[in-house]
């Protein structure tokens, strides 16, 4: 009896708790959530529905040392489109379809990815695409096996490559920008590279869903 009463009380508290009557937190006025595929499994992306939720403590830091964590410009290079969250979510949904020609890439090092990443992204640490920390065979392998470039005797054919949507920790992060510059140098078409400048920083600032990444 006592437990039943407690359960009933608990249910009442739940219904009338601030969470229970919280105002909805949509992505846009018409979209509350979307479903994407992460590591082969469906994941729902939505914003935290707790109106009192605050940004994850790692991302509350304001003054990481610069250099190296300096503020990036709004545009990286001619032809490289900078995107925001809504465009990112569209790309994540598109990347989740079978045979998609879109790849959303988390360029951060595995220690960061392990703490949480954007659902629907894959991990390619920036050091693997950077010439002085990687090697030509690794880079060539990524270009051909992951991005769809065709190796034509010393020349790369980029006519069928995937659209890459790259991000790292945000406007103070140099990892995806560095990789994007390297890709441009190889001749990767600028209109097939998108940059989510806000990165994990803005994703967290908006309370959007993250998943624990796998270390690779």
């Amino acid at each position, binding site marked *: 009896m006592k437990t039943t009463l407690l359960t009933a009380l608990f249910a009442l508290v739940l219904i009338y708790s601030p969470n229970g009557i919280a105002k909805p*937190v949509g992505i*846009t006025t018409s979209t509350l959530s979307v479903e994407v595929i992460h590591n082969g499994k469906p994941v729902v992306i939505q914003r*935290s529905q707790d109106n009192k939720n605050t940004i994850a403590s790692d991302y509350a*830091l304001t003054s990481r040392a610069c250099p190296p964590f300096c503020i990036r410009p709004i545009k990286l290079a001619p032809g490289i489109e900078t995107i*925001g969250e*809504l465009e990112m979510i569209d790309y994540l949904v598109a990347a989740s379809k079978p045979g998609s020609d879109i790849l959303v890439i988390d360029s951060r090092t595995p220690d960061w990815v392990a703490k949480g990443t954007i659902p629907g992204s894959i991990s390619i640490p920036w050091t693997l695409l950077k010439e002085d920390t990687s090697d030509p065979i690794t880079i060539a392998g990524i270009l051909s096996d992951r991005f769809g470039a065709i190796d034509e005797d010393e020349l790369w054919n980029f006519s069928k490559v995937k659209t890459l949507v790259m991000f790292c920790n945000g406007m103070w992060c140099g990892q995806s920008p560095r990789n994007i510059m390297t890709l441009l140098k190889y001749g990767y078409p600028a209109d097939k590279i998108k940059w989510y400048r806000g990165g994990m920083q803005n994703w967290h600032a908006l309370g959007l869903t993250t998943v624990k990444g796998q270390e690779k």
Partner: protein
Amino acid sequence: MHRGEAVVIKRLQDPTHKLGDEYTLSSRPCPPRCIHPFSLGAGVETIGELELLDYLVAASEPNPAVLVIDSRTEDWTSKGIIPGSRIITWQTLKTDTSDPLTVMSLLEDDFNVDTSEALWDFSEAKTLVLLCNGIWCNQSPQNIKTLLKLGYPAGKIKWYRGGVQSWVQLGLPLVQP
């Protein structure tokens, strides 16, 4: 320059400093505080912090051709604004909460639009950089739409999408208005 006095803009130097006050909140109700697209369209350029800094410096020169506008309401601006910006609350520029004379005098006196003829002349109009609370704030986007409707050239309107949220996130300073 802020209210005639020189202000140095520099990031907080304490590497352990964390975001405080309201700007840690992640889940303000949407609607109305929904995520805005990266671009407002119609040729209005979205800018970031580095570009905003350039505009703030340009706006501080004598007879500036640039005006950086904080569109937020007083309850927000009273807590601090970006140095070099000027408060023009969004309701003042919104045609259904303001009145034609107020909007007209803003255009004429503050934005340097020549309204003496029936067809307004925007050739000497200032470049306006609008901002509000950030990615989830609708105030400056609404004002930008109004300005476009009034014929303001899209090339002379810039939007700092990150707003005060991104500004303080990077440890950049606010000043009392």
